[in-house]
């Protein structure tokens, strides 16, 4: 084999290797969505029992107590700018569906109790809010930041996870589907 032929074979080999690697990266790794999607979607929502912002037993809420209702579980904090954007949407959703078997539940995350109470008072939100003081519930839900919202169906299964502010139309559509007996 001549030197020119050897070089040609080497070049072809290297090119084939690079193309194979690029193809693998494009098709294989690119399809692995587990990095961004929650592995909890489609699974039973982790149960919790959290006290309200005032710390009283009367304001405590347990997820298992809400079985049979659609739950919109919203993790938020008073220091979170994006949480303010979705505040009105969540309140409107609560007002619209509260008599139809839907609970909007705010879960305060990594916040000073006083700040959280001031925020709720200033925003005028009417749905129940509990405090995840030690972040145990946040860890159980695989929280990466706030706001994050989980939609839980009547059977206690997580059907959707929203990272960032919720979209009013999409949330209403999802809730209506669940109330009509659908899951997706």
């Amino acid at each position, binding site marked *: 084999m001549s030197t020119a032929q050897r070089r040609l074979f080497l070049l072809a080999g290297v090119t084939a290797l690079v193309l194979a690697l690029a193809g693998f990266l494009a098709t294989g790794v690119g399809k692995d969505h587990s990095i961004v999607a929650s592995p909890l979607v489609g699974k039973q929502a982790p149960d919790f029992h959290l006290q309200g912002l005032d710390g009283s037993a009367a304001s405590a809420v347990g997820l298992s107590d809400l079985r049979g209702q659609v739950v919109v579980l919203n993790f938020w904090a008073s220091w979170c700018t994006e949480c303010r954007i979705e505040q009105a949407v969540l309140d409107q959703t609560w007002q619209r569906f509260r008599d139809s078997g839907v609970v909007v539940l705010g879960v305060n995350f990594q916040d000073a109790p006083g700040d959280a109470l001031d925020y709720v008072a200033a925003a005028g939100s009417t749905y129940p809010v509990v405090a995840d003081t030690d972040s145990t519930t946040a860890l159980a839900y*695989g929280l990466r930041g706030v706001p994050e919202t989980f939609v839980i169906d009547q059977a206690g299964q997580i059907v959707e996870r929203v990272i960032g502010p919720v979209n009013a139309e999409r949330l209403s559509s999802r809730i209506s589907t669940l109330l009509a007996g659908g899951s997706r």
Partner: protein
Amino acid sequence: MSATRRRPSGSAAMVTVAVLAAVGALLFIGLRGDPPPQTRGQLAHQIASGLRCPVCQDLSAADSPAPIARQMRVQIDEKLAKGETAAEIRDGFIAAYGNSVLMTPPRHGLASVAYGFPLGALGLAGLVAALLLRRSLRRPMSDETELIRTEGR
């Protein structure tokens, strides 16, 4: 004029040996791993070091000052006290966060490529180096062409 017998590929042989030594050293370091923890605290720290703080950028649960990372460390310690194994504790976090909670990719599935590719590349480099070394040692001790060229000057 008689030809001086010298090894024209001596430097290549030295480079090859150096590459082989480097490949061996890297493989040794890469495959050696950490020493096993002696106490529960050390084991908890080792587990936390392998888990990513979910609200931080490239910080492990062991290193992050974030409250959620602190809670991860508390949970790890509590679970160890209850008798859970390191694998069970890691699996618990993976169940909520997926494999991205791990500081290093898992050694199975697609992510195993992250381990296999560098090792494969190192092995290939070692093979090439070995072939080059073998070739250079088999070469004749004199290079007639070089001598003719030198005499012609």
